[in-house]
């Protein structure tokens, strides 16, 4: 594809449900990032993958959050037992290499927890 895609674009979950958010990065991009953006705020870093290796998960808010990228391409962010404070837009970004450079963002998944 031409850019980073994310699905679903919108997700409504009842408190306590598990959700899975998918990211398809640009083909061949080594680096993949997940960010969380609360309403009216800037994005906040969650986790980073270099190919299939999760090198940094320091931003994950709790052990209810889990991310994987098993084959070094598609990534999934899973949130277990969702809480209302998890409501946010979850953004995925990829970049070609392993050093700091421009990041290409997907449109995001807006998660609403009722």
């Amino acid at each position, binding site marked *: 594809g031409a850019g*980073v895609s994310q699905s679903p674009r919108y997700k409504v979950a009842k408190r306590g449900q598990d959700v899975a958010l998918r990211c398809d990065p640009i083909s061949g991009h080594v*680096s993949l*990032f997940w*960010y969380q953006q609360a309403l*009216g*705020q*800037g*994005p*906040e*870093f969650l986790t*980073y993958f*270099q190919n299939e290796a999760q*090198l*940094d998960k320091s931003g994950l808010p709790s052990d209810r959050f889990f991310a994987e990228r098993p084959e070094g391409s598609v990534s999934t962010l899973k949130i277990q037992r969702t809480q209302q404070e998890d409501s946010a837009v979850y*953004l995925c*970004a990829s*970049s070609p290499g*392993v*050093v*700091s*450079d*421009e*990041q*290409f*963002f*997907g*449109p*995001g998944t807006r998660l609403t927890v009722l």
Partner: protein
Amino acid sequence: SQQGEEDPQALSIQEGENATMNCSYKTSINNLQWYRQNSGRGLVHLILIRSNEREKHSGRLRVTLDTSKKSSSLLITASRAADTASYFCATDAPRTDAGGTSYGKLTFGQGTILTVHP
């Protein structure tokens, strides 16, 4: 925690005017990047300026960086209604465990909401 802080929080101007947004940060950086976000969409990269650069241009955009003051500014000249969006600065800090290199973990500010009236 937010590293960058944008100023002003909101800016409203007429088409054709220039728009200036400022960003301050707290720690040393490898580079500083500016992104634009239209309502309900993902972020679009505008420009990246490295810590050893002082000024950079891209089309109608001009970015300055003052590492001694830990600040940056984004100037949009001859603004258009289509420039209406939120603008974020983001910093990439060197990793102390990796000899100063970084894979690009970005710390964003809260953004400036720019409205350009036709």
